[in-house]
């Protein structure tokens, strides 16, 4: 155990970083909070209240580390129903009640609740929520407000709205629709543009800034009124004094209706599922590899929801997109969540009048994009690639949710999954699932002897119904240990389990452990089970004969330099896990790999993703990896520039090398062990970096990772990169031998 004082000083050391990331997150949280609240028919400020109360309470009481809380997009559908059927006042009471239920879930350690839902059903439910958001807000985005009873009607009428929008004659409406379309374009193409300075401000904030600037331009530049129709402007952003004056008095009339408790249950269910899924996903991104205390987080979220509901705010949930931005911006502990709330308060306190200059369609474009992301065709193709049954479950959940409601929808999904499981396993006897449901079918023990690894054996069947047993055992294993999960006694493993297993695999890989799954290949031949086998043992892509031009040139390059070339995708990327560059990123695969004969130098294209959900960006780069014979200190070296100067304020410290002012000025050097690093950058090494082109160079102790641009390298650049790496290796090994 480390002494307490150490923790406090570490906390203060990390504080600037967290303030910075809290600030960036608040830039997204502001427009999203306003938009989500308006999409749920609540006053716009309700979303901000939820984010502020949540940010403060969960950062103090919560059990996770880098999550951000606030109003969630999953809840829009339920809140909309609650507010339209119950009225705003009773809806706040429903929010308070759902907060209490959430609190109870935390106290009864029901954090495992989200594990009982098959992943296809959850995907279907999320897609339905996406369609609800998209269907309703699309019309507002096109400046064509309509009111329909059924969610499906909203979707059906989208073409009519587009048609109407083309024929607008009112100038105010045309400008409003243009603002919406322009904002949607920004959302769509923002992640495609990889420009450092542009990316400094998140897309939703660009929309806010641009629309406020637009309105000021008309007012002060052209001395004309804003051309956007006034009914399509954000209205009713109260000042702080008004918020405090307007705190609703709790009104418990009408809580004894069926629809009230239906809403409470739906709110609780969706907010717990959304929070739990988000926490799980964010834990994977945590650079410090901590484990969240899910139940404690649930309690904090419940309490925050109660507070938020009493003050006139929405439900507080853990949100994935904002959390992933937080991680990417260097947030390391809960204080960033707190500062995000603080900045929101400052925004409202100082800029509440400016916020009314945002056109409604622009704000709704953000939500349309969110809805599209939830229900994008990619989700469906992914489902289909897992298995046709998945599509059935997906669409059953989706349609029932749209037609009837969320709770009925997810229940229908669970039932559909169960029936499908029984049917596809009928050759194993109908009793397989029913008979073995209650059996403690997971055995885990530490194998005695030299290896000391954990062995987990699963019997009978393993599906969403009894996955919690397996999970309980797997959670009891520290992630830096070795685990073997054996499914050879298991007749049936469903996709929900396999998806979770692959999450564990990633987690263990990142934290230095090993997670192996055995026994499924036999399973495949024995039971002919369709998706289990296909999921875990993906058939390697059939070798494509048609290589691209870049690939053929790489092939010739390989011949000329006597390297070996592998164009195929490789999923085994564990050798990259130790590099800090990948701490907050997920590596999808590497491909087009070139390596020399003894495999010490290799060049490859890599696809990785950072962020989650609407903040997700997929990156591709060409990288050079050098295995070193000696150990060197861990460091990161990059060009010194504007961005680094900004983050230097936020607590990252540049290491300067004595007597090499030019190097220190031009390069930005990071690392924990300053003394060792300063020793490592001797005259030769520094001179090498000074006289060669800039690359991002990173060391993990015994290997180097070098890359340049924010994209794949051309053949010429590959040659240059290879040459740079080769020479750097020589310089380093020479420097090391002199050292010895």
């Amino acid at each position, binding site marked *: 155990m480390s002494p307490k004082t150490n923790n406090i000083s570490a906390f203060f050391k990390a504080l600037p970083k967290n303030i910075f990331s809290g600030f960036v997150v608040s830039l997204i949280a502001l427009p999203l909070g306003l938009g989500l609240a308006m999409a749920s028919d609540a006053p716009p400020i309700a979303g901000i209240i939820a984010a502020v109360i949540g940010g403060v309470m969960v950062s103090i009481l919560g*059990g996770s580390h880098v999550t951000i809380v606030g109003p969630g997009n999953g809840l829009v559908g339920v809140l909309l129903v609650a507010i339209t059927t119950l009225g705003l006042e009773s809806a706040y009471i429903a929010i308070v009640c759902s907060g209490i239920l959430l609190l109870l879930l935390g106290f009864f*350690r029901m954090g495992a609740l989200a594990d009982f839902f098959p992943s296809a059903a959850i995907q279907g439910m999320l897609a339905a929520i996406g369609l609800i958001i998209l269907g309703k807000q699309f019309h507002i985005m096109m400046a064509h407000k309509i009111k329909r009873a059924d969610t499906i009607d909203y979707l059906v009428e989208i073409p009519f709205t587009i048609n109407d929008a083309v024929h607008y004659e009112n100038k105010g409406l045309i400008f409003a629709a243009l603002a919406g379309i322009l904002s949607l374009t920004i959302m769509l193409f923002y992640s495609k543009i990889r420009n450092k300075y542009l990316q400094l401000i998140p897309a939703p904030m660009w929309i806010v800034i641009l629309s406020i600037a637009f309105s000021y331009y008309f007012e002060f530049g052209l001395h004309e009124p804003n051309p956007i129709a006034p009914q399509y402007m954000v209205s009713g952003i109260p000042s702080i004094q008004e918020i405090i004056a307007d705190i609703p008095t709790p009104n418990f009339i009408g809580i004894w209706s069926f629809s009230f408790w239906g809403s409470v249950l739906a709110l609780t269910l969706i907010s717990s599922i959304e929070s739990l899924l988000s926490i799980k996903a964010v834990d994977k991104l945590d650079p410090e590899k*901590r*484990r*969240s*205390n*899910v*139940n*404690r987080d649930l309690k904090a979220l419940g309490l925050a929801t109660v507070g938020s509901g009493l003050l006139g705010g929405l439900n507080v949930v853990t949100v994935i997109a904002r959390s992933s931005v937080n991680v990417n911006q260097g947030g390391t502990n809960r204080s960033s969540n707190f500062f995000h709330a603080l900045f929101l308060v400052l925004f409202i306190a100082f800029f509440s009048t400016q916020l009314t200059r945002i056109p409604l369609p622009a704000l709704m474009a953000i939500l349309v994009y969110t809805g599209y992301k939830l229900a994008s065709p990619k989700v469906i193709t992914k489902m289909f690639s897992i298995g046709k049954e998945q599509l059935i479950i997906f669409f059953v959940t989706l349609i029932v949710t749209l037609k009837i409601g969320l709770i009925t929808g997810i229940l229908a999904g669970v039932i559909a999954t169960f029936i499908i499981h029984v049917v596809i396993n009928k050759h194993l006897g109908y009793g397989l699932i029913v008979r073995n449901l209650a*059996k*403690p*079918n*997971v*055995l*885990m*023990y*530490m194998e*005695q002897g030299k290896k000391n690894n954990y062995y987990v*054996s699963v*019997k009978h069947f393993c599906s969403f119904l009894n996955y919690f047993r397996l999970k309980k055992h797997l*959670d*009891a294993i*520290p992630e830096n240990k070795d685990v073997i999960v*054996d499914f*050879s*006694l298991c007749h049936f493993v469903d996709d929900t389990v396999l998806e979770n297993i692959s999450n564990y695999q990633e987690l263990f890989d990142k934290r230095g452990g090993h997670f192996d799954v055995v026994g499924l290949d036999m399973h495949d031949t024995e039971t002919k089970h369709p998706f289990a086998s296909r999921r875990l043992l993906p058939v390697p892509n059939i070798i494509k004969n048609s290589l691209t031009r870049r690939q053929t040139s790489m092939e010739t390059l390989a011949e000329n330099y006597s390297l070996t070339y592998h164009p195929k995708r490789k999923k085994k990327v564990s050798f990259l896990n130790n590099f800090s560059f990948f701490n907050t990123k997920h590596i999808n695969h590497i491909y087009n790999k070139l390596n020399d004969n003894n495999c010490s130098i290799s060049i490859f294209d890599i696809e990785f993703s950072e962020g989650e959900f609407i903040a997700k960006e997929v990156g591709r780069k060409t990288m050079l990896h050098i295995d070193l014979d000696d150990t060197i200190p861990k460091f990161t070296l990059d060009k010194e520039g504007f961005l680094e100067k900004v983050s230097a304020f936020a607590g990252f410290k540049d290491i300067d090398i004595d007597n090499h002012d030019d190097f220190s000025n031009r390069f930005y050097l990071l690392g924990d062990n300053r003394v060792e690093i300063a020793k490592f950058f001797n005259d030769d090494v520094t001179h090498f970096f000074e006289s060669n082109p800039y690359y991002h160079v990173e060391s993990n102790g015994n290997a180097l990772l070098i890359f340049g641009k924010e994209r794949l390298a051309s053949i010429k650049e590959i040659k240059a990169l290879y040459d740079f790496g080769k020479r750097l290796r020589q310089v380093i090994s020479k420097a090391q031998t002199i050292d010895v």
Partner: protein
Amino acid sequence: MYLKPFKSIGIGVAFSPNLKANLFEAARLSVFFKAKLVLIHVGEASEEKTNVLSTCLKSFEKDNLDYEVVFKPGDPVNVILSTSEEKKIDLLILGAVKREKVVKYYVGSIARKITRQAKCSILLLIKPSVESNPCKHIVVNGLKDPKTEQTITAAFYVANHVNSEKITIVEEIDQEEIHVKVEDDKSLRRANIVKERIKLRENSRVNEIIKHIPEEYTKNKTIKLQPIFGKRGYSIGHYAQISRADLLIMNSPSKMTFWDRLFPHDIEHILTELPTDVLILQ
């Protein structure tokens, strides 16, 4: 330590396709333990049946197999139980093939009833074979229970007679004994410390038992201790199955109440899913 040697071995015989395999297994065991074999048939005696039995056991004549056939009509459970008491049988063998539906029923009800009521040790065979399969690996429970010491001693006694080389003593530990709930890194670390402590305690308890066993039984044996955190009775069966044990030796169940039948535990788990041959010691 008092050890009850197996002086007479009983087996219930039905004229099923498995008859020969069951008889061979029983006869081989009787030879190993130098015990008398009692064949119990539920039904009327007939010349034909006796002849079938004697032809079957002909090949064991050279090993001086001493056997006796008892015919008795009536309810199978009562007949087998009463006969084994009359004949002072120490070990009762029940043949049970996992795969057959009918026998599943058999194991499910008749064997269960007999196991619950019998006053002698019981061996449930799931894979009887005419060929002799060497019994290489024995798994025995090391529960914290007054009966365990006798069971482990008996396991070594059996191992010696059937020339088994490896004995694994499985200590099943209830999850409830770890009072820490794993929620985050800190509680995980605490839980693991508690687990280590319990494991050490259990291992030293079992080692103490092994020390008391006469050395002639324990020498030349590979002894392995395996603590497992899991459901009592179920985990050991699961373990026996994955470690491909040839014989699983268990304590006899304590007196069953109504609740125990409703919520199966310990030996009941083993009976519903026979992982391998099971010997229940009285």
